[in-house]
């Protein structure tokens, strides 16, 4: 971002007032203090944006087509594989990677670890956006998206696991909105709102833990409805919810490490000194937490295999695939984390986080698609389905960037001191 040069000290905006003492308008804040031409210039200079435009050029018509012609137009309309990428990736993959909000909320607010304060807002935002886009993916996938509130208000099926997921994701989404709002209020200069929310922060955090434990687990429990369809190695009716919950802990932490790495490298202008100075320290801290969660995860995975007497499955081709998944997606990053923590080698940790996050998605896709109907044929998603998934994810990226560019997420707002 070469445009924010030294000769314009008021940019990036961290304050309500300009150099000359007048206040920034919201519009100016939205434009990052640039003029429209300047803004356009920096936008089109960025190759990432061209890449995004390419994705959207095809993706948006596809999404419109999905609503005009039905799901069958963009997917294989499979009755054997009712859930495809939209849920397999969008819901089951996005949600665990968004467990960061409750993880760091708990660390900072509940356990009083102020030393992680500089990353807390990023973790909260990462959580909020992940959930929001998971719901967006759901809205693509639902046959009748306009009936989204039905399970809440119209016809209740409280015995169903998905009922729990719906309620918890909805409430948790509001909890996260509340947790991220202070950043928006600071940016807008509405201090009262911030103070109101500050009062409830602990209640919100506790609610966050409960809701997260339950719905992260519930996403796993959804697959216990298909005990004869999911390969036994990927399904343990007793421990599935624990597998999903525990893996979401290191999934969420890894995602924050990734986000912070990207921000540090490509948005350095936006970070304040505290964020930059603390980043390596908090990254090591999070890696420590993640590696602990990973070892726990490996143990309960093992317990599940032992409990269900599935040793013989390990000798089959599926068994090798299972070991490959655990090895690459969990054991490898776990060692990278541990080694990185011990030697304070942050770059290794960052690579490890990348592998771990992909590993979570891999695991969720395995559970929902690859090892689902394992005795049947393998479903390969339709290209339109893939493209739409990429498009929504690109939108997620853009929104993420849009917010981090503006709100005080990785910097402290100087306005109210």
């Amino acid at each position, binding site marked *: 971002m070469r445009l924010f040069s030294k000769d314009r000290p008021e940019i990036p905006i961290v304050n309500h007032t300009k150099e000359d003492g007048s206040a920034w308008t919201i519009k100016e804040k939205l434009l990052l203090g640039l003029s429209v031409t300047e803004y356009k210039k920096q936008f089109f200079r960025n190759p990432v944006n061209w890449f995004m435009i390419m994705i959207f050029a095809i993706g948006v018509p596809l999404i419109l087509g999905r*609503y*005009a*012609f*039905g799901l*069958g*137009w963009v*997917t294989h*309309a499979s*009755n*054997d594989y*009712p859930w495809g990428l939209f849920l397999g990736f969008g819901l089951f993959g996005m949600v665990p990677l968004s467990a960061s909000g409750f993880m760091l909320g*708990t660390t900072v*607010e*509940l*356990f*009083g*670890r102020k030393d992680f304060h500089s990353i807390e807002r990023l973790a909260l935002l990462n959580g909020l956006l992940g959930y929001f886009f998971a719901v967006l993916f759901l809205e693509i996938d*639902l*046959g*009748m998206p306009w*009936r989204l509130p039905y*399970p809440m208000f*119209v*016809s209740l*099926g*409280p*015995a*169903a*696991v*998905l*009922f*729990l*997921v719906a*309620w918890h994701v909805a409430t948790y989404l509001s909890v996260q909105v509340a947790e991220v709002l202070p950043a928006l209020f600071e940016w807008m200069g509405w201090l009262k709102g911030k103070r109101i929310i*500050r*009062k*409830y*922060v*602990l*209640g*919100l955090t*506790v*609610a966050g833990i*409960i809701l997260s*434990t*339950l719905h992260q687990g*519930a996403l796993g*429990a*959804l*697959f*216990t*409805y*298909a005990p*004869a*369809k999911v390969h036994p190695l990927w399904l343990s*009716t*007793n421990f599935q*919810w624990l597998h999903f919950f525990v893996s979401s802990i290191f999934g969420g932490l890894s995602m924050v490490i990734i986000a912070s790495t990207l921000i540090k490298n490509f948005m350095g202008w936006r970070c304040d000194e505290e964020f930059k100075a603390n980043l390596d320290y908090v990254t090591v801290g999070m890696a420590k937490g993640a590696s602990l969660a990973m070892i726990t995860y490996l143990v309960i995975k093992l317990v599940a295999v032992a409990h269900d007497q599935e040793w013989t499955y390990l000798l089959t081709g599926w068994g090798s695939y299972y070991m490959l998944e655990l090895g690459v997606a969990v054991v490898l990053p776990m060692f990278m984390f541990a080694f990185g923590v011990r030697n304070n080698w942050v770059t290794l940790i960052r690579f490890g986080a990348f592998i771990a996050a992909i590993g979570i998605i891999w695991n969720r896709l395995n559970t929902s698609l690859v090892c689902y109907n394992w005795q*049947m*044929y393998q479903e390969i998603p339709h290209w339109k389905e893939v493209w739409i998934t990429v498009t929504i994810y690109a939108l997620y990226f853009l929104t993420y960037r849009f917010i981090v560019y503006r709100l005080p997420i990785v910097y402290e707002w100087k306005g109210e001191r």
Partner: protein
Amino acid sequence: MKKLNRRSFIKGGLATTAAAAVLKETKSEASGDFDNYPEGMGVIVDLTRCVGCRSCEAACNKEQGLPEPAVPFDDFSVFDIIHHGEKRRTDETAYTIVNRYDPPEIDHPLFRKIQCNHCNEPACLTSCFVNAYTKTPEGAVIYNASVCVGCRTCMIACPFYIPTFKYSSAFTPRIMKCIFCYDTRLKNGKPPACVEACPQEALTFGKRRDVLKIGKQRIRETPGKYVDHIYGEHEVGGTAWMYLSSVPFDKVGFDTHVPKEPIINSVKEFLAMVPMVLTIWPGLFVGFHLLATRKDKIQELEKEKELRKLKENDEKEEQV
């Protein structure tokens, strides 16, 4: 910021506990146990009788007003259709399908009709978060399209791959599945259309407990004709439609690995842990918080004390 402590704590705690109480209540009513309707109807399908005439498919198509088939119902080349290595299955145009199997142990083919088995504790029903499904006292598992949101969890949950989705429709999609001809026949004491159409009486209709008796009688009185098992008597907690076969069931396309218990039982582990988390977590984590921040708090209290002392001193001085 430090002032949030105890009071707001309790406030937050209360809110979560209240939520816990509400959710717990809804949970307990939802234990997943359905009354087994003793008068429920059922069908026993005798594979040794079926000749693969597809009369049942044709009758179903007309009774349920399903779309015109791609090929006539007396075209038997459909038995050779293999898609993705699988034989034909139910879809949005067909609630019931007959498939041919050629088990090596016998010299003639066997035919197997599939449709919804109208489980005693239907997985589709228990997995649906808007309660779109109902098990009627007559034994049918019916579906209400007006509340369905199209999440397709029921399709995941059904161990027999029965519910299908009307993917072709953008504005009125819905689940498509056999409803035992509930609206038009069953509720008026009539057998479903397929049963009535079957020339071979491969489909024997009656109260579930009666047709079960019939099945057992057939096995007992014609030794050697059947394998000694009625598929659906216990599978997934029992189904209203049950099957007799002369060869092991896995040779004619049945999934013999489905659990003997209702599908909901494998979910119970999780459902049981929900109220626990809801009730224990708030106290547990609030406790953690108090412990973790005790030092801060003591410091704060001390500071307060000092402040108060200072104030008092000030006041005293003033008085003096």
